[in-house]
């Protein structure tokens, strides 16, 4: 294939698809009880220097209980697929991230991410490679398909391309210019879902972001779920299963696991606490105080929920019309 142009960004995590196939071959296909706590799942599967990814988005169906545990255990030098709001923000604030394949880190309507800005501007992030949203998702899709790269028509002609690790090649059929992006295999994927059984068959309601692709691009996949349900409940609606059990390594029951983010049809986001983070994160000192208050000083997710309080959580539930209501 004729390479016409190449982005100058580093390929942070080169994909070895044959090793991935071998790994997948060895993953148990038996139905095994994979229930464990956040502490156990993070301790077993997340390691210093791991390349991790989170889905969906820091205020929406986001694995906050898992990310908080990563911070508690101080897993450091993380490399990350950077598509996020709160979850990437707190990891950056805890100084745990070293390299980023970045598409967007910000706070949406609340503006830029101050921890991201500090980590970039003081050089603590050693590599920041740029991508578009779709490019990063297509990288997961390539892995999900089991192929080394995918063609796309995003990023052409821009600095987003120049600072990426994408390439431009001659379309071997049509002869035009087309961009290609390399498969991305995560060491660990963290995904929060509405319901899963103890084996890891997982279902989500509402839009699915890039959940299906990322789940299939993860060597190790930790699922946190609002509730663990009997397998019969999954089997009654198998069309809703977006992540089948054999992809999954750990199933963590985490009610309000996305808090202060939202969970479709279940609870609204906690605007007061998000605003508290927006203010706190503006300074290094404020960020550390927030992390002390909501992460370091609380032993686990149960303690976190106790600290937030039942009344407040019920109020967030009350703000959302359930799926069948």
């Amino acid at each position, binding site marked *: 294939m004729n390479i016409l142009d190449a982005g100058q960004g580093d390929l942070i995590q080169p994909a070895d698809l044959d090793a991935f196939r071998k790994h997948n071959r060895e993953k148990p296909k038996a139905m095994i009880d994979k229930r464990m706590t956040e502490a156990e799942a993070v301790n077993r599967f997340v390691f210093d220097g791991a390349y991790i990814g989170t889905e969906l988005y820091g205020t929406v169906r986001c694995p906050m209980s898992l990310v908080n545990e990563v911070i508690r255990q101080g897993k450091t030098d993380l490399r990350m697929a950077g598509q996020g709001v709160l979850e990437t923000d707190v990891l950056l604030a805890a100084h745990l991230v070293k390299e980023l394949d970045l598409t967007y880190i910000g706070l949406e309507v609340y503006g830029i991410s101050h921890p991201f800005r500090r980590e970039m501007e003081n050089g603590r992030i050693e590599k920041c490679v740029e991508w*578009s949203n779709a490019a990063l998702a297509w990288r997961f899709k390539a892995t999900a398909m089991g192929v080394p790269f995918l063609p796309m028509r995003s990023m052409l002609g821009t600095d987003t391309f120049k600072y990426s690790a994408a390439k431009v090649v001659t379309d071997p059929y049509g002869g035009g210019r087309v961009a290609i992006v390399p498969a991305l295999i995560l060491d660990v994927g963290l995904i929060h879902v509405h319901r899963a059984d103890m084996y890891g068959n997982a279902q989500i309601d509402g839009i*699915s972001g890039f959940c299906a692709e990322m789940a299939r691009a993860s060597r190790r996949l930790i699922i946190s779920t609002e509730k663990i349900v009997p397998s019969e409940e999954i089997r009654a609606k198998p069309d809703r299963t977006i992540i089948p059990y054999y992809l999954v390594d750990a199933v963590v029951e985490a009610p309000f696991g996305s808090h202060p983010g939202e969970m479709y049809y279940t609870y609204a986001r906690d605007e007061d606490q998000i605003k508290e983070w927006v203010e706190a994160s503006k300074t290094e000192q404020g960020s550390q105080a927030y992390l002390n208050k909501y992460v370091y000083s609380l032993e686990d997710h149960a303690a976190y929920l106790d600290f937030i309080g039942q009344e407040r959580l019920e109020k967030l539930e009350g703000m959302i019309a359930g799926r069948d209501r």
Partner: protein
Amino acid sequence: MSEGRYNTSELLICTASRLMPDKTTVFVGTGIPMLAGSLAQKMHAPDLVAIFEFGGTGAILEELPIAVGGQRTFHRAVSASGLLEIIETAQRGFVDYGFLGGAQIDPYGNLNSTVIGDHAKPKARLPGSGGGNDVGSHCWRTIAIMRHDTRRFVEQVDFITTPGYLTGPGAREAAGLPVDTGPYRVVTTLAVLGYEEESKRMMLLETQPGVSVDEVVENTGFELVIPDDVGENPPPSDEELRILRDEVDRNRLYI
């Protein structure tokens, strides 16, 4: 400029809303495009198809989303899918309009939302492309919404996050981007701008109410194409303002 009847956010929202024709597909982000989409649905475009990048298609914008992945982005929608279904739909030519923002824009409509200064040693690090580059690559027509000053309207952006016409006529096609796509309008606090057909450079079309052509020129950091005939964009109507304030953003999240 506003004579106190409306603020600049309301002016941007009403102006952008009029650029969303009924029965078209529009890629919207949070903030002003979403308010404009909701206003358009209630004014002249009941069948406007709002598309959100994390999977919402055809939502009825009764409640304002505050996150591009939030539940309101697929409220009573025709489908709730995922990110790639949305961008692939745009990539195969189904999305008519895309709305964009950025920290900087240049005469060819290239947008920067990645970094001010050097990429490795930034003066100010910004969020990055997100879906911006995808929207700017695949939608048939893109519309940028900007506050208008010389800091934002610059001869050369520090970083091209999202492609406009790149270096001029033919450059998008030469780069491999889909043909006949590109920037269409820029809605600002001072003007509505388009692009000159031959040069692909930004051209003044209309000034906002009470704004002079000179004011627009003074607040633009590059040479604008100024046609002989520059119109004035009508101010927000009482009806637009009423719907915007009483229905679209009744909780005053944005305006």
